[in-house]
C-alpha cells in the first residue's frame, strides 16, 4: 500500500466515518435542519491524508450508513458518489495548503475579508438569477425565498469576514473559497442522483427547499439543482471551517505524522 494508507490513516478512517454518520443523523433526522453536516469526517481525512483516502472515507460512510445492521436505512446510499467527490476535492485542497494557518495583520486582513464577502455575494447572485427561478414561463419563485437567500448570504458573508478579521488569519478566505467550490460541485453531482433516483425528494430537511422551487414551477432536475445550490455551498463552507478550526487546534507534532501534515503546519510556509 502506498504512503497514503499508513496505519495511522487506517485508524483515522473509521473514526471519521463514525463522526460523519453520528453528526449527519443528528442534524438531518433529529434537528431536521436544511443542511447535511455529514462530511466533516470526509473532509478531515481528505485534508490530512490525501484525495484517495478522503474519497474512500466518503464512499464508505454512505454505504455503511445505508447497509449497516441497526443503523441502515434512509436514502443516503446512492449519494456515495457525491461523498467520494467531496473527499477527493478535500484531498486536493489539503495538498494545495489551503488549510494552513496564514497569520496576517492590518490591510491584508481587511482586503481578504472584503473579497470573501464579495465572493459570497457572487455565489448568491446566480441563485437569484437562475432562469429556473425567474422565468415567467416556468413559473417564477415565491418571493419569500428571495428574502431568505439574501439573509443567508449576508449572514454568511459577515461570518466569514468576521472570522478572517477576528482570528487575524488569511486562511479563512481560502477555506471559505474551498468550501464554496466543493459545495457547488457537490450540488451539481447530487442533483441528478436525487432527481432520477428519488424523484427529487430525500426525506431530510432540504425537501422544504425542493417544495418551494417546485411551487415556483421548476422541473424535477432544476428543483434538485436549485436546492443543492442553496444547501451545499453553505453546508460545505461551514464544514470546511469546522475542519480548519479542528486542524488549527491540533499540535504540529500530531499533524506532521499524517501524509499531508507538512502542508498543514505554518512553519512549512
Amino acid at each position, binding site marked *: 500500500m502506498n504512503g497514503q494508507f499508513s496505519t495511522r490513516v487506517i485508524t483515522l478512517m473509521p473514526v471519521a466515518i463514525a463522526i460523519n454518520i453520528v453528526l449527519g443523523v443528528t442534524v438531518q433526522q433529529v434537528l431536521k435542519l436544511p443542511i447535511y453536516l455529514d462530511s466533516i469526517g470526509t473532509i478531515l481525512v481528505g485534508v490530512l491524508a490525501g484525495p484517495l483516502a478522503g474519497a474512500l472515507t466518503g464512499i464508505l460512510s454512505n454505504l455503511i450508513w445505508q447497509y449497516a445492521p*441497526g443503523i441502515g436505512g434512509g436514502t443516503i446510499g446512492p449519494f456515495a458518489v457525491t461523498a467520494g467527490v467531496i473527499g477527493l476535492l478535500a484531498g486536493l485542497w489539503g495538498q494545495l495548503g489551503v488549510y494552513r494557518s496564514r497569520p496576517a495583520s492590518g490591510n491584508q486582513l481587511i482586503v481578504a475579508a472584503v473579497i470573501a464577502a464579495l465572493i459570497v455575494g457572487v455565489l448568491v447572485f446566480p441563485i437569484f438569477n437562475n432562469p429556473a427561478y425567474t422565468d415567467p414561463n416556468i413559473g417564477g419563485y415565491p418571493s419569500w425565498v428571495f428574502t431568505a437567500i439574501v439573509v443567508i448570504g449576508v449572514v454568511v458573508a459577515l461570518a466569514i469576514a468576521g472570522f478572517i478579521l477576528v482570528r487575524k488569519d488569511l486562511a479563512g478566505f481560502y477555506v471559505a473559497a474551498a468550501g464554496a467550490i466543493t459545495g457547488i460541485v457537490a450540488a451539481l453531482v447530487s442533483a441528478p442522483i436525487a432527481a432520477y433516483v428519488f424523484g427529487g425528494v430525500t426525506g431530510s430537511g432540504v425537501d422544504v427547499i425542493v417544495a418551494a422551487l417546485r411551487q415556483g414551477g421548476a422541473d*424535477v432536475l432544476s428543483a434538485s439543482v436549485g436546492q443543492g445550490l442553496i444547501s451545499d455551498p453553505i453546508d460545505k463552507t461551514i464544514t470546511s471551517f469546522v475542519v480548519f478550526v479542528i486542524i488549527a487546534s491540533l499540535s504540529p507534532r500530531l499533524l506532521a505524522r499524517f501524509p499531508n501534515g507538512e502542508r498543514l503546519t505554518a512553519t512549512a510556509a
Partner: protein
Amino acid sequence: MVPDFVLRPPTGRYHALNPGTKLVLAFAEAAIAFGVRGWTGPLVVIAIVVATATAARVGRSLVPFALAVIPLVASILLINTFLFPGATDVIAHIGPLAPTWTGLGAALQATLRVAAFALSVAVFALTTPTDDLLADLERRGLGRRGVFVIGAAIGMIPRMAERASEITDSQRARGLDTEGSRWRRIRGVVPLAAPMIIGALSEVEERTMALEARAFSAPGRRTILRPLPDSTGQRAIRWVAGLGAIVLVAASVAGILPVP
C-alpha cells in the same frame, strides 16, 4: 476441530448462503428497483424480497424497516402529487391546491422504488451478521485494512453516539441550552461536535500504536478461523444476478424493455 460455539451454525437456507452472495443479491435488487423505470421493476423486487424474507423467517422483522420509510414516503407523496411540474390532469381543486393524476402516479412509483430499496437493504441486514460479511470479504481479498476500516466504523458508531450524549450532558451541566428554539439548538452543535471530534482524534494515536504492536501492517494473509461455505451454485447465482441486473437496467434505460 473448531468448537461449536465458534462455528455458530446458521439457521435457515437463506441465512446459510455465503455473505458475498447475499450482498450481490442486495445490490442487484437495489439496481433493479431504481434502474428499471416504471411499475414492474420495484414491484418485482418487492415480491422477491418479501418471498425471500418469508423463506428466511425474518418477515415480521421487515416491518420496522418498512415503517421507517414512512416520513420519506409522505414527503414524496405530498410534494409530487401537489407540485408535479407540467401536469395538468387535476384530480380536484382543494382551495389553492391542485393535485394531479400524473403527480400521483409518479409519487406512487417513487414510493415503490424507495420501499423496494429499503426492504432489500433490510433483508440483507437481517440475514447477514457483520463479522461474517467482513470475514468473507477478507477471504476474497479485501485485505485486513479494508476489513478493519469497515468493522471498526460500524462498531464505533454506537460508542460515538453515547459519547455525544455524554458530552451533551456535561455541557448542559455547564449551562448549555439544548432545548428551546432552533437557533439555540444550532448554536449547541459546536460545543457538541468539537469535543467529540477532538476526543476521537486523540484516540487515533493510541489505536495506531495498539495496532502496530499487534503486527497490523505485517505482510501476508491472515488465516480465517471459520471458513464460510461457498459453492459453484452460489457463484452461478452471483454472476446471473449481477449481470442480469446490469442487462435489465441497461435495457430499461435504452427504452427497449417492454414492461409497464
